[in-house]
């Protein structure tokens, strides 16, 4: 059988990127299933697309802009309504130790 399209190590790395704490069983199952799917999508390489533009969107529209007018926000109470953990005014998460903030 040909080499797998994606190996266990790569699947682990992708799970990390996707923030999924997968079990060992899932990792190995996904390795097989994703390999099969990636094998299948190889068929795209039958097509020469050297001179084809990528089509991210079907619609020929652009510049959908809104005016800079203030709209009602939800307010603190509604904003926090679905929060799994919160105090009076904030969402809470376990303490972030390596905060670098912003971009």
């Amino acid at each position, binding site marked *: 059988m040909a080499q797998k399209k994606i190996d266990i190590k790569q699947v682990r790395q992708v799970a990390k*990127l996707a923030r999924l704490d997968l079990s060992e069983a899932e990792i190995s199952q996904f390795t097989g299933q994703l390999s099969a799917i990636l094998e299948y999508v190889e068929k795209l390489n039958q097509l020469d697309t050297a001179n084809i533009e990528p089509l991210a969107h079907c619609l020929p529209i652009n510049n959908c802009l809104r005016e800079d007018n203030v709209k009602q926000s939800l307010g603190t109470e509604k904003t926090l309504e679905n929060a799994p953990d919160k105090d009076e*005014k*904030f969402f809470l998460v376990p303490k972030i130790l390596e905060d670098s903030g912003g971009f």
Partner: protein
Amino acid sequence: MTNIDYKIIVGLEIHVQMAAKTKMFCGCELAFAAEPNSKVCPVCLGLPGALPVMNRKAVEFAILTATALNCKVAEFTKWDRKSYYYPDLPKNYQISQYDLPIGSNGFIEIPVPGGATKKIRIRRVHLEEDAGKNIHTAGPFSQVDLNRAGTPLMEIVTEPDLNNAEEVKSLAIELQRIVRFLGVSEADMQKGHMRFEPNVNLHIKKDNNEYKTPITEVKNLNSFKALEKSVAFEARRQLDNFLETGECLQSGNKKTFGWDDIKEVTVLQREKEEAHDYRYFPDPDLVPVVVNEKWLSQINSRICELPLGMQKRFVSDYSLSDYDAGVLTSDKATADFFDSSVKAGGDAKRICNFITQTGLKIANEKGCSVAELGVEPDRLAELAKMADSGQVSATAAVTIFVEMTQSKEQPGRIAEKLNLIQKSDAGELEKIVDEVIAANPQAVEDAKSGDKKSKKAHGFLMGQVMQKTKGTANPQVVAKILASKLKI
């Protein structure tokens, strides 16, 4: 001793918050210090099903800035998603611009010592949304406030053309001036409207070889002082590190530092577990931005004279010092106010003194600009003329100026009301001088003596005249009369 010669290389990334009323992709109000999580809606909270719609003003502000920074404005741009997980980033992707920034290949001229300027190339200007804030003061938790999430930002990236900490600071200040002149940002450092990230390394010549030290990025600096000091610190640290370890730039050894404002040192940040892989791809919820000629010229018709050009003009046309011209052009309203006052006939140096020595102080106390003090430029010019002609003394002129910011009356009326019109009538003044001479024979003798006491005695006699006239005598006229009477 080894012969060491090195050059500091710095490229700067600057995030500038735009002076729009609402966020980049939703109608939530941009409000400083609002109740936490009160300015949040389904869009900026990243709720399921919510969709972004671009703020026209933010897009136009970015185009305006790109043009002012001599960039090529892209005819076609789009939005991309930059993926990473962080609690202050509700969608876990930031909407930004990746391969097609709205502006590219520009430059900014910055003042350097000696009155000269230096061109720093601008690599790109792009638009993006800000994240919220994580707060780490609540025991074992971090608190998340999303009021800032979605705030429209411009990210401006320079080429590594800066060669010392002073230049870096100079660029930051110049950029602050420009965005304020354009009205695209309040650029208030206290409110975090400008944040800096310098990328620093050294090119070292040693024993006829050139070595490059690993690039470090210092994150999230929000004052000019921290920016300048961190670059200087990094340069020293990198030199020491190189001399000690010989470590050189390689792919993958770029490091990220934070800045400790108290110890004034850079601090290495713990590296994330996996390498950054932002997985940029075009945001399918947004459509492209196409900037045609018509729109571009409409936007660019709003471009004004830029601060550095204005500063140079004030020096060459009005003979101001470069320092004074710099102070006057630190914000557009002040610069325009000054310029209009001079154009209304006021003497440039005198108007400059009114503004820099008195006006800025009052404006500062009131928390507004000099232009907002309620003094019309032509009134200020009038006051300057009164002072020039000796109608009022220089001191009285300042008193009148202060009064003008409160009463909105004409300077002449104020001068009359406060009895500040100078007596320049030679006949009237001569009588008073004669009285003073008659009453102070000793001083007159001393003044005439020509020795050390002379100057002091002369001043005393002047003072007596001024006292008798309650300060309203024109000192120039008095001095003339006194001199002729004493024949010195």
